[in-house]
């Protein structure tokens, strides 16, 4: 079997269910791969891991990746996209709702500093003055939102509304995707070098992962409970939360072209959205040929 290392974008949660399942069921071995899975975290920059050669493949945020290619000359290729629609959204409370980008005017919104550009893209695409919104740092803790210290936060709409519900509030959210920021997320990224030398392995990975995702999304509530003592052990999160997450993300992942697919139209939309904030992406940054092989 040939060894392949993947770098995930975040700590173990339902966001990566497809891979967990594929690993548990041996789909990667079936494809002749010996997969090493690296969890992520707030200080892990997945792109760095592959540049440094610590992983062969990474799940990334496309805006970061494309910006790195166009501005730093990084030699990346995007070979697939887990989320057809980015689950990132503006999350607020029902009692103080932010329903559209326009509602953000005069509000305080907490954004992870690494994602400020994404929000700036949203504002710019919707013709809102950047200075009309008070952007403060966000560290993935919903407490300030629930306590009303901030009006909204940028977070995964697939995840945080569940927690807010548990805390006795009702969440209101919209996807950035639905307001012009038409980006993928958890894009599958490799270096050009890896692409050239390990093409077959990458195709194998895509195939096995797709199998895992398909099976997982068939019944989103089925698998997370089984991972209580394995993948999710010690994460501090709850299984109910993962089921919620897995269910919520289904529509954002499945696509007519199969999991990971990147249609020409979708790629166009990504490039257009990035253009709005001055990130110059090109079609060459995406390589759809592996998916075709799958």
């Amino acid at each position, binding site marked *: 079997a040939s060894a392949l290392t993947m*770098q*995930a974008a975040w*700590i*173990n*949660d339902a966001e990566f269910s497809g891979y967990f399942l594929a690993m548990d069921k041996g789909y990667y071995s079936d494809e002749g791969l010996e997969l090493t899975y*690296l*969890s*992520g*975290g*707030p*200080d*892990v*920059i997945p*792109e*760095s*891991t592959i*540049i*440094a*050669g*610590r992983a062969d493949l990474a799940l990334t*945020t496309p805006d*970061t990746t494309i*910006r*790195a290619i166009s*501005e*730093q*000359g*990084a030699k990346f290729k995007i070979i697939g996209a887990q989320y057809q629609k980015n689950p990132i959204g503006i999350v607020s409370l029902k009692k103080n709702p932010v329903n559209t980008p326009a509602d953000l005017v005069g509000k305080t919104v907490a954004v*992870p*500093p*690494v*994602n*400020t*550009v994404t929000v700036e893209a949203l504002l710019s695409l919707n013709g809102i003055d950047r200075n009309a919104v008070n*952007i*403060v*740092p966000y*560290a*993935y*803790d*919903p*407490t*300030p939102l*629930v*306590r009303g*210290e901030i009006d909204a936060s940028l977070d995964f709409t697939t*995840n*945080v509304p569940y*927690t*807010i519900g*548990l*805390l006795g509030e009702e969440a209101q959210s919209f996807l950035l995707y639905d307001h012009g920021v038409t980006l993928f997320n958890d894009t599958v990224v490799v270096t050009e070098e890896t692409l050239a030398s390990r093409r077959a392995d990458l195709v194998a990975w895509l195939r096995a992962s797709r199998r895992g995702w398909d099976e997982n999304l068939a019944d989103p509530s089925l698998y997370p409970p089984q991972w209580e003592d394995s993948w999710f*052990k*010690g*994460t*501090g*999160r*709850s299984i109910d939360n993962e089921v919620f997450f897995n269910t919520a993300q289904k529509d954002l992942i499945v696509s007519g072209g199969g999991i990971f697919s990147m249609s020409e139209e979708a790629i166009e939309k990504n490039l257009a959205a990035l253009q709005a904030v001055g990130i110059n992406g090109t079609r060459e940054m995406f390589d759809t040929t592996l998916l075709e092989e799958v």
Partner: protein
Amino acid sequence: MANRAGFLRSGTFRNLAILILVWEVVGRVDWIAGGALPGLSEILIRLWADRGDYPGHVWATVQASVLGFVIGNLVAVGAGILFVLFPTLLRLTRGFNIAVFALPPIAIAPILVLTLSGMAPRITLAALGVYFVTMSATVVGLSQFDTRAADVVRAYGGKDWMVMKLVRLRGAVPDILSGLRIAAPNAVLGAILAEFGGGGRWGLGTYLLGSLGRGDPARLWGIGLVATLIAGLSYLVFAVISARTLGSSRSVTLNTAIPDADDGAERSLPLRLAVIAGAALLPFFLWWAFIKLTGVPDLIAKTPLGVLDYLFLSDTSHIARAKLLAALAETLPITAIGMLAGLGFAFLLAISARMFPGFIKTFMPIALVTQTMPLVALTPLLVLILGRGTSVTLWITISVTFFPAFVLLVQGIQRVPQSVLDLPRAYGASAWTELRMVSIPAALPYLFAATRLTVPRALLGVMIAEWLATGTGLGNLLNQSRGYLDYGMIWTVAAVSVCLSVAFYYAILLIERRTLTRLGMQWVE
């Protein structure tokens, strides 16, 4: 046995009980920040419910922090001894030493994770967290030796290393121990912070990350308290040993001898210039060597030349410079205030430690919590209480800076020989008068050492606050740049912040030398 009974009856115990009760009530009735501060019982209940999660995380963190603690401190004490024996070495490596202390963990953790594997990044970060404090404490301790005793050794032909072995090392034991006390929480925090970037599955840091999104303060406090417990145990061990050795380490009478003014200084001008040049270039050389040796690709790892290029020569350099200057303009003023605030707070505490020993014993556990509780977890609460303005920045800066200064100051005050304390007491001096006239001046070398520990950290504290709470200045710039994979800016901010810290440090050093020389006191580089 008698000790334990004494403790139960003591004011400390009573104060602690009161403190816990107040905390419980405040937490229960949701007084602070609308209930964001949980009561102690809520935390304990949560802790009990989560008990299954903890062993694996605690074990991972303990492993990393213990290893880092041991390695970092061994290196620190060894380096301290070398530096005292060969002051030139200290001068040469000073920039590097300060850099190690002042480097923002958010900047180095990802680099460490990329260059090292397994537990190594965590151990390294823990070791980096302890190195400078212990080294500094070792150096002050070794330099505050009794020259009369050294004369005895020299009169028998004993050389410097013999004086070191027989006089200085033993005399510095309480100081080194106070260094270890400060190091304990630093090691734990270092390990936890490395877990943020390590992508591992186990460790309190990882657990904290997973728990952040739950909006459950009781869980976060539970993790913080467990981390504090780990650090606190180690703190306690060294505090007890320190108390045991202190009495017999104090001179019976105060040494009045004036130290040689130019002990170990390079005499010739060319040599002095060479040392200065070496000291200035060494950190950059090590930086360059680190990158070349680890072979990290150019895109991620910028060499000093790379940073120069980024900042001055490349096409986009004017944008980078503008961003950097704007950030500096936001960060620097508050840093100056933060330094003073941190130092002032430490000083105030050290004085209270002498005047109200009971109060300070009660305060110690709280102080330890502030040192081991990761600020990511604490900031939401702080923001709820203080908002996102200057006060939260100051608060965070104080909490990041005061502890080493405080412990070192207390140590300096405790070292004053009984015979000189007798004098003010024989004239009925109040504790405050005695402190003012004898203990504080006698502890001046420690006060300066404490200041030198505070100053580089102040900038770091401000940057953490900017990154977590205010979203301004260098801290925010650093974090944002990570989202752009803008490693040029990341290295630039790290380098600039270190250079600033070194500059502050040298400024203090200059004042220190002048003052101590005037007062005929022993100073170390």
